[in-house]
């Protein structure tokens, strides 16, 4: 419990939240000298804001109806070989407990899922056995490990690796990861999902809460509770009649419509997760679900620095503009077949972005590839482009003056294409140019090209 309330605290917290990195540290250091008690409180609040970034975002009623109006039978002291420590989660079929398993040789913590809801019935039991079967087959560092499953005292239980960590968004916020680091973290998730897909398992409920990151920064997927095996022949759901259970905010359009769920549905959910991780909010404004998502950069830009821990700096939305926008929007396409064909393809595109290469999501745009090339080889390209565009501009100018507007437009297009062709040729001679420039213009200034 904090000391007596200080009326200055809210303002100080607001000011600190608007600063980042070194600036924030320096500001806090100043405050610490003047008011050590207040400074500590501000620091604590900043830490809890980062850890609980999404907390209270959803109105209480909606959280309540999503899981609370169910029986609360006292948990058993132990289930099979597991001693129950405390409850850590709950859902439609049962609860999840932190439990301990102790044998002569080892002692470990496990996440123990127990189905103890009245009325779960055959369907629930079948889903449970299915999850156990699926998990036993999935051994990957990015997926919470399966230990044991069974039936005892009238309950099904499932023992999984207990991951000590925080969920993806909280981790990224608390560590203050930048865009590249966030993408790097997310690639771990994509690799784990791709592994599951290659084992013909679709997760179907990918969301930040099901992705935990441990203190070492390793991400792990949890909760394959509603995952399923895909029939490789038809790619259809073998258990189509089972109870639909998923998280609407992350579910793909086909999932919401109750249609066939494939790897593309996981790709979509991952798109939502990445969006939230990078832009700080979900793709759809409340009530606007079903329309086209806003580009992440636009959404990030709109998020005000005043909105708590989800501080988005100018740099953040600038990072997203263009390639990352395109990548996320491709993952979020309404039509499943227009999305990335696999988690691996999604990952490959993000790796291209990290390497500064043209991304698949924007393929086809000639102009785009040229621009990308230009960014990688800024100096020589700028000089070549200046020369060519100056030429194009003068030709266009003359023609427009002679009022042959349509023809002028056509010629301008030709000139532009010519310029772009020249740019692509410039790629080939770029290495030579770079070498020449480094000698000719040590100050970093390009040689000048006089317009004709």
């Amino acid at each position, binding site marked *: 419990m904090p000391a007596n*309330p200080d009326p200055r*605290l*809210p303002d100080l*917290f*607001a000011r600190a*939240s608007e600063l980042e990195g070194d600036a924030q540290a320096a500001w806090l250091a100043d405050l610490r000298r003047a008011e050590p008690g207040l400074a500590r409180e501000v620091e*604590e*609040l*900043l*830490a*809890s*804001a980062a*850890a*609980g970034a*999404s*907390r*209270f*975002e*959803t*109105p*209480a*009623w*909606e*959280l*309540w*109806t*999503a*899981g*609370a*109006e*169910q*029986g*609360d039978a006292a948990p058993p002291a132990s289930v099979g070989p597991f001693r129950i420590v405390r409850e*850590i*989660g*709950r*859902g*439609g079929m*049962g609860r*999840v407990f932190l439990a301990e398993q102790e044998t002569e040789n080892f002692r470990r913590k496990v996440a123990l*899922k127990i189905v103890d809801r009245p009325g779960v019935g055959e369907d629930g039991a079948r889903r449970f056995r299915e999850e156990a079967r699926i998990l036993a087959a999935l051994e990957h560092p990015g997926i919470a490990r399966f230990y044991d499953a069974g039936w005892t005292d009238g309950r099904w239980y499932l023992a999984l690796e207990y991951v000590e960590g*925080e*969920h993806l968004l*909280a981790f990224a916020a608390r560590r203050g990861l930048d865009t590249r680091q966030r993408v790097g973290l997310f690639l771990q998730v994509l690799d784990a999902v791709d592994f599951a897909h290659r084992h013909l398992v679709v997760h179907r409920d990918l969301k*930040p*809460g*099901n992705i*935990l990151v441990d203190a070492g920064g390793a991400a792990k997927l949890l*909760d394959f*509770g509603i995952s399923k095996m895909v029939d490789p022949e038809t790619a259809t759901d073998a258990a189509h009649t089972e*109870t*639909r*259970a*998923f*998280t*609407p905010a992350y579910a793909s359009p086909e999932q919401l419509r109750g249609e066939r769920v494939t790897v593309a549905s996981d790709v979509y959910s991952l798109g939502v997760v990445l969006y939230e991780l990078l832009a700080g909010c979900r793709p759809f404004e409340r009530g606007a679900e079903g329309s086209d998502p806003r580009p992440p950069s636009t959404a990030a830009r709109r998020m005000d620095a*005043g*909105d*708590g*821990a989800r501080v988005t700096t100018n740099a953040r939305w600038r990072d997203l503009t263009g390639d990352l926008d395109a990548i996320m929007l491709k993952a979020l396409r309404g039509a499943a077949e227009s999305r990335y064909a696999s988690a691996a393809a999604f990952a490959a595109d993000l790796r291209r972005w990290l390497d500064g290469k043209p991304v698949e999501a924007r393929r086809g745009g000639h102009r785009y590839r040229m621009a990308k090339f230009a960014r990688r080889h800024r100096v020589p390209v700028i000089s070549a482009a200046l020369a060519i565009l100056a030429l194009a501009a003068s030709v266009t100018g003359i023609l427009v003056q002679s009022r042959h507007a349509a023809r002028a437009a056509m010629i301008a297009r030709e000139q532009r294409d010519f310029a772009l062709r020249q740019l692509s040729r410039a790629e080939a001679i770029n290495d030579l140019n770079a070498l020449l420039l480094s000698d000719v213009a040590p100050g970093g200034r390009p040689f000048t090209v006089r317009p004709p």
Partner: protein
Amino acid sequence: MDPRDWSDPKAVARPGEVTELLHAWRAGDTRAGDLLVKVLYRELHDMARRRLRAERPGMTLQTTALVHETYLRLVDQRRVEWRDRGHFLALAATMMRRVLVDRARARRAGKRGSGEPAITLTDAASAGVNSADQVLDVDRALERLTAAYPRPARVVEMRFFGGLELEEIGAVLGITERTVKRDWAFARAWLARELA
């Protein structure tokens, strides 16, 4: 002042009467305020119960819609000022909190609910509230916040329990949207620390 007898809550279900109550309350009639609270509580409680029964699996109760619908149904739109609307919504948010807390208490006391379906196994870290105990914990923490920093606590009540928009909250409290955002961020951090 209208010498009406406000003693029967059932008598004020019609829009005109709730509007009169709202006017009387704003003019300083505390009895009208008390009655308004009763009417609103009963109304929201019934509506929440009906909704929770009717919703399909996987759906949630839309707080914002519920509060605004109540307003449209209970208040005569032609006779009300914009400021009244804010006061009504704020009061509704308080009542939403009370209804939920009562429901959580009843649940913890062992009464069975109507077995509304859950969405999925939720990870405790991702949800703010997911059991009766947690609702009550948040409620108590919010009371402590009210004692220390009343305005940010009001913002939480209106937003987290009442589903009101930042703009609406600003209008009720007479502060800018930017200040509402700051209060909201502060209160969330404060509560997250309390509940950690």
